[in-house]
């Protein structure tokens, strides 16, 4: 159930992020329609409105199909080795189709613009404001301000690591600690890319260009720095609270938490993801307001607004030293990586490495998803196991074999747990550390207590579990 909830939250969050990120398509920054610069007098032309309407229909279709296909992935929640590649494929395809919609209709609008001669100036022009270029990286908050936040998170990870040996909560949270650390690394890299990005020439007024670039770089870099600290603080808050749960001796697994604590966990997740989204939206809104104000005053002063660059946006920026750039999106909210030919070798390498990683994880996990618990007794020695995990013991060492109608609460220490199987070393309530080989769909379990270990086992069906139990009892009585 917990896995389904996590998957549902992930899918809805990703879908929502795409909708906001690719949303609208209407006038943005006072001049872009569908990402194409179009003077305001042509925006109400019949052909333009038709293209805009077709784009909106296509986008709504993509969003609808994306949501339905995303939610249908939940049906695969029992088979993580299939779910994981399908989820990544869904993510990639959704991203591709959202991108394709934008490009297809933006190209159509650009062709119409060229055909009708609605160009504000020459095409294929790259403008350089020498005074603006000399300013360099000024305006953006240095990404180094993020290092303390990263330090706080790494400190939490180290603290979690050293407590993992003695605490089930910390051991469970340790892999999750990678998420905030990786998020902060990504924020750092985006901030660095934005700071190093070449300034954009908006108009024929150099001071206005400097103000506009300052606003964009400062607001985005401040937003990312805030998000980095927010991630660090929320993660510490989560760890500090989770430490308290263990001290009270109530924790055996997240499924064992009270509603209050589960709500707290959910709140932290929502604050982490939603807070980041909110900060990005606020930064976007502030930049939009400031830009409109500056551009209006520039127009009033009679300076020329440059509206070229559409072809570079459609086809990626020109290659060479400035080939890969972090730039503001012309549709939706946020920043994007503008790259000629879809990122070239680097882009292809990232796609190939991701595919190899996903297929590798999937192949590694596949045997666990389709595992079968086996139990055999030969020459007085019992062997129990599934996939590559197993344990054997002498029947003469068995002290007690118990049939239980209900599986006790347990949490993984090491091994594998999914909606279908619990395999490996688990902490079982009232029994401590045990060897577990259980099919989760089957409630009845057999508890075998030996001098050294306690082993939990069952079959895929009630009949198989009964067969296991009868065989064990027969062999144990023979040895006694």
């Amino acid at each position, binding site marked *: 159930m917990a896995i389904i909830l996590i998957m549902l939250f992930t899918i809805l969050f990703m879908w929502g992020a795409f909708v906001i990120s690719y949303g609208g398509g209407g006038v943005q920054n006072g001049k872009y329609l569908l990402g194409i610069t179009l003077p305001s007098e042509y925006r109400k032309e019949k052909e333009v409105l038709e293209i805009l309407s077709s784009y909106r229909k296509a986008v709504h279709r993509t969003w609808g199909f994306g949501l339905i296909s995303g939610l249908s992935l939940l049906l695969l929640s029992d088979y993580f080795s299939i779910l994981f590649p399908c989820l990544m494929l869904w993510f990639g395809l959704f991203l591709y189709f959202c991108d394709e919609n934008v490009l297809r209709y933006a190209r159509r609008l650009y062709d119409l613009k060229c055909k009708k001669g609605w160009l504000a100036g*020459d*095409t*294929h*022009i*790259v*403008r*350089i*404001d*020498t*005074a*603006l*270029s*000399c300013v*360099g990286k000024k305006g953006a908050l240095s990404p180094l301000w993020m290092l303390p936040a990263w330090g706080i998170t790494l400190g939490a990870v180290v603290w979690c690591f050293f407590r993992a040996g003695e605490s089930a909560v910390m051991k469970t949270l340790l892999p999750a600690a990678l998420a905030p650390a990786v998020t902060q690394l990504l924020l750092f890299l985006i901030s660095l890319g934005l700071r190093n*990005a*070449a*300034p954009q*020439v908006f108009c*024929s007024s150099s001071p206005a260009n400097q103000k506009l670039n300052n606003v964009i770089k400062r607001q985005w870099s401040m937003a990312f720095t805030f998000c980095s600290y927010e991630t660090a603080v929320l993660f510490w808050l989560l760890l500090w609270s989770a430490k308290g749960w263990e001290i009270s001796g109530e924790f055996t697994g997240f499924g064992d938490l009270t509603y209050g604590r589960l709500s707290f966990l959910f709140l932290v997740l929502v604050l982490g993801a939603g807070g980041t989204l909110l900060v990005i939206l606020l930064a976007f809104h502030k930049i939009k307001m400031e830009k409109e104000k500056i551009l209006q005053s520039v127009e009033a002063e009679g300076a020329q607004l440059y509206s070229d660059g559409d072809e*570079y946006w459609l086809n990626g*920026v*020109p*290659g*060479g*030293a*400035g*080939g890969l750039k972090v730039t503001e999106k012309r549709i939706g909210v946020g920043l994007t990586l503008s790259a000629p030919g879809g990122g070239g070798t680097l882009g292809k390498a990232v796609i190939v490495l991701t595919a190899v990683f996903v297929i590798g994880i999937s192949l590694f996990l596949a045997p666990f998803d389709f595992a079968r618990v086996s139990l055999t007794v030969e020459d007085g020695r019992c062997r129990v196991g599934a996939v590559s995990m197993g344990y054997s013991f002498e029947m003469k060492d068995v002290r007690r074999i118990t049939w239980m109608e209900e599986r006790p609460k347990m949490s993984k220490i090491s091994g594998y747990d999914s909606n279908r199987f619990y395999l490996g070393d688990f902490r079982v309530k009232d029994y401590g550390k045990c060897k577990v080989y259980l099919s989760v769909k089957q409630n009845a379990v057999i508890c075998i207590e030996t001098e050294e270990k306690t082993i939990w086992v069952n079959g895929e069906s009630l009949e198989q579990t009964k067969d296991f139990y009868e065989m064990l009892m027969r062999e144990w009585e023979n040895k006694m």
Partner: protein
Amino acid sequence: MFIELNTASSIPIYTQLRNQIVLGIGRGELKTGEHLPTVRQMAEAAGINVMTVNKVYAILRAEGFIEIDRRHGAVVCPRKENAEALQEKCSAQLELLIAESSLKGMSRESFFAICGEIFDRQQTAAENAFL
């Protein structure tokens, strides 16, 4: 100063960049002592290779329009000593332009009027640049 590069033009980018900077100095948009963007900044702003900008700055330096200071980058510093050496270049470029103008039917007076107007404008700006 605003530099405009046409990426679809048959004129090489480095030639366009060199010409635009010279025109900027001539028009007084770039004053003596004014800094140009560093090679890397210029390359990033134009989306061209660093080596292309390096080549342009080397040409401008050799022609006596800028000086390159290792600490402060490229500085506008036009020198007047090459005037005689330019005569040959001028006559070569003017010959083609005059041939085109006369073939298209432009009169001698119109041609000289345009030349005089541009020369006066550029010279005033150039004198201001040296102040």
